[in-house]
């Protein structure tokens, strides 16, 4: 016995040193890799108080994980149970090396309470895993990666938890020396196993043997797991918490401004994994391939080659494969991201509508769009490699400041005879209305703009437009990777805006809204921006418009990504619709608000062919038609066009109307 204890001490000491040593070497290498990439981020560690709060809500509260209630709860059970058994396992490890170690001696009551709680939480891990297994074996959601990686972790953890309980069962039976800590009556669950397996009938030697066997299996599995983590998707266990702690705290975000005037810059955008920044790398480490992004992604849902989950995985694989060159700062030897045989193809990069559903749903706050948009930027600026139909769009934007190539001087022609003042004629206007390209040139968009003008005039709003001084806001060019034209357009607009210094800017297009609000400040224009749904709600609430002809016909509302997920405006359009339909709420589609399904136009997809898979607008049209609504209310001219086309394709007579058109008819 004495010999066994000695051998156990030595073996344990060696095993612990070996496993922890290996783990730390692997983890340190990953950390070094994260610090070796050459990309820059303007991230600053600020608002610590808020971040600490995030640890409580998002990590301990599991708020994001629980957005999927069933598997979220299962994750929470596993998470807390797994955390709870760690001190116990640590105690066992120390005891293995120093048999006299016994925390029960120092703080008996606290230790007893801890063991009681941990014993219950550990059992709940098995409940969580039972659901996880049911999901993997029976439900098999398509967005889930079915691989040995995931199965191994379930096996590992189940073995750890089961042996935890058996160890405790045997512990409660082991004889206690007088005056030392007694484990009898401490474990509410594990002690139930004693009569279940008839363990009390074992001889004292049998009990000791049972304990030792479970001890070794338990420790060996934990150490094996420790070695396994850094090389697997379960790196998530290490990276998720820091990634969440360092997450973007505000919903609105801007695309990266590249310093295109820097003559020494060798490249722009993201061409190689070495050009990632440390925050991107932490994002990659944090992903556990839960697939929620893929489930929400309009490209994935319509059989396009993009899956945000796979994209993150592929970036991670590429990064790890080229880690040696990166850590040696041998950047010229790093292979480009889009290359022969690479998983990240042009079709992957260009399938994205930038709807941000992936980022919104990600429980660990990965920002998938940063990878996609920066790669697009590199493809366009450095390689002139983009969908061929975009060439004309780029040329139109460059020459006529609108994507269709209409003469920019005719920008105010949509309001001929409507008595809409230009800012030059009404410099003191309360509101500068940035009409946008769709409202100015597109036949459908012009009707929306005209309705808007009538409503503003009826509400006696003192407004003005820029007319030919307005140019495309740059959203299409920027999200299509053409930072050069985007910056040209943004600077042109900024110069005009700063000349008039408007009190407030109104937009009817969420893309105008978003870029003026979040990206124009990069170029020196900071103005309060309001979307027409917000403005009209205020006007209606103030009683400045009287609804005389409110429709009771069933309505549904389609969330525009750039209004909703990019800027968090979900309530204003709904309240506005209720206020003009006698308080009746719009019928909600299954995918609404933060899970709203894109129309397919974002990220400059409006101007690209959609040849792969099902058309996104048709997928959404089917969802609209299924609500039984007679009208779908929209708050974006691009959504209007896409949904109208989709609904026509489905041969339905559901009307597609901008909210402002509905108001225009109702007053």
């Amino acid at each position, binding site marked *: 016995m004495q010999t066994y204890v000695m051998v156990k001490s030595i073996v344990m000491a060696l095993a612990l040193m070996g496993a922890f040593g290996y783990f730390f070497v692997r983890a340190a290498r990953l950390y070094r890799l994260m610090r070796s990439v050459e990309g820059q981020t303007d991230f600053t560690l600020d608002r610590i108080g808020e971040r600490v709060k995030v640890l409580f809500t998002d990590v301990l509260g599991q708020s994001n994980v629980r957005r999927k209630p069933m598997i979220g709860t299962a994750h929470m059970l596993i998470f807390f149970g797994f955390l709870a058994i760690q001190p116990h396992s640590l105690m066992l490890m120390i005891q293995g090396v120093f048999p006299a170690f016994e925390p029960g001696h120092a703080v008996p009551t606290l230790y007893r309470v801890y063991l009681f709680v941990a014993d219950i939480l550990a059992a709940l891990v098995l409940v969580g895993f039972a659901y996880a297994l049911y999901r993997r074996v029976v439900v098999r959601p398509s967005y889930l990666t079915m691989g040995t990686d995931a199965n191994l972790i379930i096996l590992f953890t189940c073995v750890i938890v089961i042996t935890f309980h058996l160890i405790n069962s045997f512990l409660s039976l082991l004889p206690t020396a007088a005056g030392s800590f007694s484990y009898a009556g401490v474990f509410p669950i594990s002690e139930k196993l004693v009569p279940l397996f008839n363990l009390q009938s074992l001889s004292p030697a049998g009990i000791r043997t049972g304990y030792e066997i479970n001890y070794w299996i338990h420790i060996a599995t934990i150490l094996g797991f420790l070695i396994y983590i850094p090389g697997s998707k379960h790196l998530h266990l290490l990276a998720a918490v820091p990634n969440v702690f360092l997450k973007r705290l505000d919903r609105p975000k801007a695309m990266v401004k590249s310093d295109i005037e820097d003559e020494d810059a060798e490249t722009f955008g993201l061409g190689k994994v070495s050009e990632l920044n440390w925050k991107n790398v932490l994002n990659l480490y944090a992903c556990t391939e839960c697939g929620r992004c893929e489930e929400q992604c309009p490209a994935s849902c319509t059989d396009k080659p993009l899956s945000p989950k796979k994209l993150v995985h592929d970036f991670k694989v590429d990064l790890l494969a080229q880690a040696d060159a990166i850590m040696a700062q041998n950047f010229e030897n790093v292979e480009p991201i889009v290359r022969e045989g690479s998983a990240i193809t042009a079709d992957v990069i260009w399938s994205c509508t930038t709807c941000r559903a992936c980022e919104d749903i990600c429980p660990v706050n990965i920002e998938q769009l940063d990878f996609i948009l920066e790669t697009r930027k590199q493809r366009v600026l450095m390689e002139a490699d983009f969908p061929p139909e975009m060439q004309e769009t780029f040329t*139109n934007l460059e020459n*006529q400041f609108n994507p269709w190539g*209409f*003469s920019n*001087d005719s920008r105010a022609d949509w309001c001929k005879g409507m008595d809409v003042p230009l800012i030059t004629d009404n410099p003191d206007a309360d509101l500068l209305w940035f009409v946008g390209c769709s409202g100015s040139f597109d036949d459908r968009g012009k009707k929306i703009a005209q309705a808007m003008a009538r409503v503003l005039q009826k509400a006696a709003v003192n407004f003005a437009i820029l007319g030919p001084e307005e140019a495309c806001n740059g959203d299409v060019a920027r999200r299509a990777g053409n930072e050069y034209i985007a910056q040209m357009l943004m600077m042109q607009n900024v110069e005009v805006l700063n000349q008039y210094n408007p009190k407030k800017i109104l937009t009817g297009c969420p893309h105008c809204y978003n870029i003026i609000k979040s990206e124009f400040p990069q170029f020196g224009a900071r103005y309060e921006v309001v979307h027409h749904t917000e403005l009209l709600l205020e006007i209606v609430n103030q009683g400045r418009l009287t609804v005389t002809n409110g429709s009771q016909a069933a309505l549904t509302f389609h969330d525009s990504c750039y209004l909703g997920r990019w800027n968090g405006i979900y309530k204003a359009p709904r309240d506005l619709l209720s206020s003009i339909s006698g308080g009746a709420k719009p019928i909600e589609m299954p995918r609404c608000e933060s899970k709203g399904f894109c129309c397919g136009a974002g990220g400059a997809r409006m101007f690209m062919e959609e040849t792969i898979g099902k058309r996104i607008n048709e997928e959404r049209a089917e969802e609209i038609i299924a609500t039984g609504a007679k009208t779908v209310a929209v708050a974006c001219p691009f959504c209007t066009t896409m949904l109208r086309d989709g609904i026509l394709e489905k041969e339905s007579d559901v009307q597609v109307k901008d909210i402002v058109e509905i108001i225009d008819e109702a007053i």
Partner: protein
Amino acid sequence: MQIYVCVKHVPDTAATITVVGEAGYNDTACKFIINPYDEYAVEEAVQRVEKAGSGEVVVVTVGPEAAVSTMRAAMAMGAHRGIHVKVEGQFLDSTLTSLALKAAIEQDGTPNIIFTGRNAVDTEGFQTQYRLAAAMNLPVVSEVVNLEINDGQAIVQREVGGGTRETLEMKLPCIIGATKGLNEPRYPKFPDIMKAKKKELKEIDFDQLGLDTSVDQTELLKLEAVPERSSAQIMQGSVREQVNELVRILTEKDKVL
């Protein structure tokens, strides 16, 4: 291979140009671009030199001061340098233009091929390549959609209508008028746009060329805006009323029946 490409600085066809007075116009708010047909010419020239691995593409422009932006656009596509013959105003007789091009090219070097576009979208003259060929005593084919060069021979194809193409052979040096179909003009990479800003651009005043301006045979008499297209008229009422109204308009107003 030494290739010269004649490029014109033209107003974007989408631009609105306001006529001022009899033959004047206001182009201050109007965007000028590289003549779209000249882009096929530049692309072809750049591809030839890229394929050969040696040679030079020189852009030659006869145009106003502002034409530099067009020349830079051609250089961003890959032309190596430019020669700018500066003139006042947008309109220059095509005889004089071709003589200026000839003088600028001959001052500079010996061309193996000269590319032009089939026409410029502002004056729509379709003249320059032929007048240049006559002045330089070189063979010329315009509206070229396919080009092969073998042993000092250029084998060109051009559309002759109805989907039929004719194939012609010319000895180099020669002049080729490029058109849509010859290639897909590239979208320049951003670093190439930046590099183009620093490429060599030689400026020559038109007067310095010492050309005989008495050969000018064209005079701009009048500019007139295209009348705005009237919008469609939609008949109201029953089908019978609508048909009656239509017949009345066609007989009384438009007098076509």
